């Protein structure tokens, strides 16, 4: 599986200490639009395998990271480069847009 499951525990390693680009989809099981966003992110994870770390973070189970980034509306997607947040997108995002943002940072 190419999609990464980000958690409070692995965030340091997978994102903050990651020297490249990482895309995190902040979601929850009760969120309708997240169910549409999910497969889009999964598809990108396959497409960018080896190029960027792409995956999701369940805000209910990983409150620490969600609070740290003040996620107050989901889906929220944050794209990191060298451990730093570079792009923050709130609401449902289309594949094209995410691809463009990723390519900009790669």
């Amino acid at each position, binding site marked *: 599986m190419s999609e990464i499951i980000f958690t409070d525990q692995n965030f340091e390693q997978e994102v903050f200490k990651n020297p490249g680009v990482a895309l995190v989809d902040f979601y929850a099981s009760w969120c*309708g639009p997240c169910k549409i966003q999910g497969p889009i992110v999964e598809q990108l994870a396959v497409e960018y395998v080896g190029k960027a770390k792409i995956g999701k973070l369940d805000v209910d189970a990983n409150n620490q990271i*969600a609070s740290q980034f003040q996620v107050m509306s989901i889906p929220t997607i944050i794209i990191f480069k060298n451990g730093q947040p570079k792009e923050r997108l*709130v609401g449902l995002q*289309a594949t*094209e847009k995410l691809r463009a943002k990723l390519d900009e940072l790669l």
Partner: protein
Amino acid sequence: MVSHLLKNYEVVVIGGGAAGLSAALYSARRGLTTILISPEIGGQAGTTFEIENYPGRGFVTGPELMMDFKLQAEASGTEFLLTEAVGLEKIDQQFLVKTPTENIPAVAVILAFGLTPRKLNLPEENNFLNKGLSYCATCDGPLFKNKIVAVIGGGPAGLEAAEYLGRLAAKVYLIARADKLTGEEVIKEKITANSKIEIIYQTEIKQIIGEGQVEQIVISKKVGEQIEEQVLKVNGVFVKVGYLANSTWLPDFIARDEKGQIITNKDTETNCPGVFAAGDITDIDYKQIVISAGEGAKAALRAYQYIQKTPRLGTDWGKK
């Protein structure tokens, strides 16, 4: 980049709620090349927590019901473009639907983009959007578990939001402009029985304060003949002050009423042949999921009939 420019769509549906998804389903099932354009999927129904009046489904949540609508439209062959429509042009016998990045040609257009939440009209409002300020309790509510929130609006949508948030938040202020609440008795009873919900009547919100996120709100309360200002500490503000028909982006040749709602006849036809409208954005009296779904289906069937009558378009294009 995938271009929708090179493809000729017979039907472009604008809107991803009950009306739009039903229109797309019916259109695609008639064999028409169909694309649905909307920045979100599910519409207002998708943001409703509990739905008990959609026939045949008993009790269902809004996101669940609308996801099924979407899957069915998709399975029937509808394509989806997750962006907003910003313009509509008529060129000879066809239409051009404009999005921020591309123009999509269409033989027939179905307008089904529903209503937009009304804003408070505070100058700082947009700065706090997604930073504690939300127009959708079921979308963002669970992120305020055990926090303090204010719901602005004493109407049915405000009551529904307060009742829902009352299950999660530590404290809910329900700010009502009038001296009483308006809505279903069942919900009113639930609200008054919940000690976490404090109703503040005859009150308006004046200001939102916070650094980077919502921290406080200033309210002005009518006490007798006096107006008293008060500051409340809150983590979130949920705005539920009604809905607007946001149709100003449409060209003048689409007739609308004084509320901005698209004027349709009983067959979902607008004053412009080839353009149909369905659901809450039309001047129909009842804003209900089942009605929107029906109207959407009707619009697609009418669009099919319209396309059949304009063979010059169908034959020239040569479907792939």
